[in-house]
């Protein structure tokens, strides 16, 4: 007879633990219908004093900021909509301000970045009002904030969308935060 040293309850306990682990496995649910067709939810234009901009209370903000898929989609739009044309691939800046540092002229909250893209800013930043869907805008906001490490670490982009030589973009290793 084979001798076992394990207590008799070990096997059922292991099975239960495995079942509990398996139950924890959950594919991320991805919804393609974030913006119901027909809805236009751009915030009104802010034409008053100079300030960081209005904050719209959009419940989906947090969802996009903590979602790796949203960040990577935002990276795609960043390159395809030619944000990279002024802010450089990876957000190093050029004709436009760098996005990979800790300086935010118009605020670093998601709502501020959203307003910056939608309304444009003086001295060069054009307004993209009506040109980009809300979903894509929030994805872009998530990516822009991820460049300087403002979104959770596991959402940062590890690579560029395009073939490249040398090290991956800065999002994986954000610049040290300036005081």
């Amino acid at each position, binding site marked *: 007879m084979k001798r076992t040293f394990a207590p008799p309850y070990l096997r059922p306990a292991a099975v239960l633990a495995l079942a509990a682990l398996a139950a924890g496995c959950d594919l991320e649910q991805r919804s393609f219908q974030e913006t119901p067709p027909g809805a236009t939810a751009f915030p009104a234009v802010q034409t008053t004093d100079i300030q960081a901009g209005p904050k719209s209370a959009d419940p989906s903000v947090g969802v996009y900021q903590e979602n790796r898929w949203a960040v990577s989609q935002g990276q795609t739009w960043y390159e395809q*909509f030619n944000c990279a044309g002024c802010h450089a691939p990876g957000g190093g800046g050029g004709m436009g301000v760098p996005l990979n540092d800790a300086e935010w002229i118009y605020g670093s909250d998601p709502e501020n970045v959203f307003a910056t893209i939608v309304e444009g800013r003086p001295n060069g930043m054009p307004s993209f009002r009506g040109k980009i*869907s809300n979903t894509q805008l929030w994805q872009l906001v998530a990516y822009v904030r991820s460049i300087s490490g403002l979104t959770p670490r596991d959402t940062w982009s590890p690579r560029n969308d395009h073939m490249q030589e040398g090290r991956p973009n800065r999002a994986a290793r954000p610049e040290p935060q300036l005081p």
Partner: protein
Amino acid sequence: MRLPRALLALTAAAALAACGHRDLSALDPAGPQAGRIAALTWYLVIVGSAVFVVTTGFLLYALWRGGRRVENYSGEAAERHIHRWIYGAVGVTTLILLVTLIYDFTTGRALASFAEPDALTIRVTGHQWWWQVQYIDPVPSNRFETANEIHVPVGRRVRIEVQAADVIHSFWVPNLHGKVDLIPGYTNTTYFRADRAGVYHGRCAEFCGYQHARMDFLVIADPPAQFAAWYRNQLRSAPAPADSVQQAGQQVFLSTRCAMCHTVRGTEAGSRVGPDLTHLASRTTLAAGTLPNIRGSLGGWVLDPQSIKPGAYMPPNPLEPDELHALLSYLESLK
């Protein structure tokens, strides 16, 4: 019990026969390479079936005969008899495999040596989930771009250079040739020739994400004169809006989300994210073979692509009714 089974078999056979889609069939070749592939397929099917029938026949014979004793079947004569059969069967098997190997090799060689330096060159780039088609010509002004629909002249060799923009895809027009994979960062090349005019369906043959199943395209083989006319028309910029409605539609196109991704040559819209729409109305399908290109489906697609092709990268476009109708009139004018 016996009749239902026979009926079931008949129904299954009928269902299989109905599977044949004439425009999407490797067994209905429209070019020399597809012809070779089809011939090899038929050869393998016929030889394989014959081998199956013969071996099954011997097996059944052995089962039937196995129970009986054969008197005086021993000694040298019997040994020779058995050996004759064994050597004979091994010899026939080797011969069949050898012939198949040689046939397969010569077919592969013929498929691979179809290159021709002055073939019509078309660059096909796979995107999630549509096909970008660029006609390449040494003269830059003779190049243009379209999407999801490839016109080729009958009787002329076509060189297809395939690339992938995001993930792997596979370019497959069964009536014309076998598959060729699209690999990001690498250009694959294939050649084919259409020998009879017609519309042939193509399909992405490598799983590439949510809408892999809705990533079709058409290869339209035109007689040379008709192809030349089509080519000349595609080279042109989009026609100017003909009336005030189309004018308003063009404004909608340029001032909303459309222009962020699409090109209409001759206007300020020059983005290369989505398909080139310069001659959208000259194409027969929308969204890579998902919808027929008619006003109704165009409107539905513009308003809410996510209900038609969930996961596609085109966002919903909430437009006012008059804006939508103007836009549709404009898009329909892009012949």
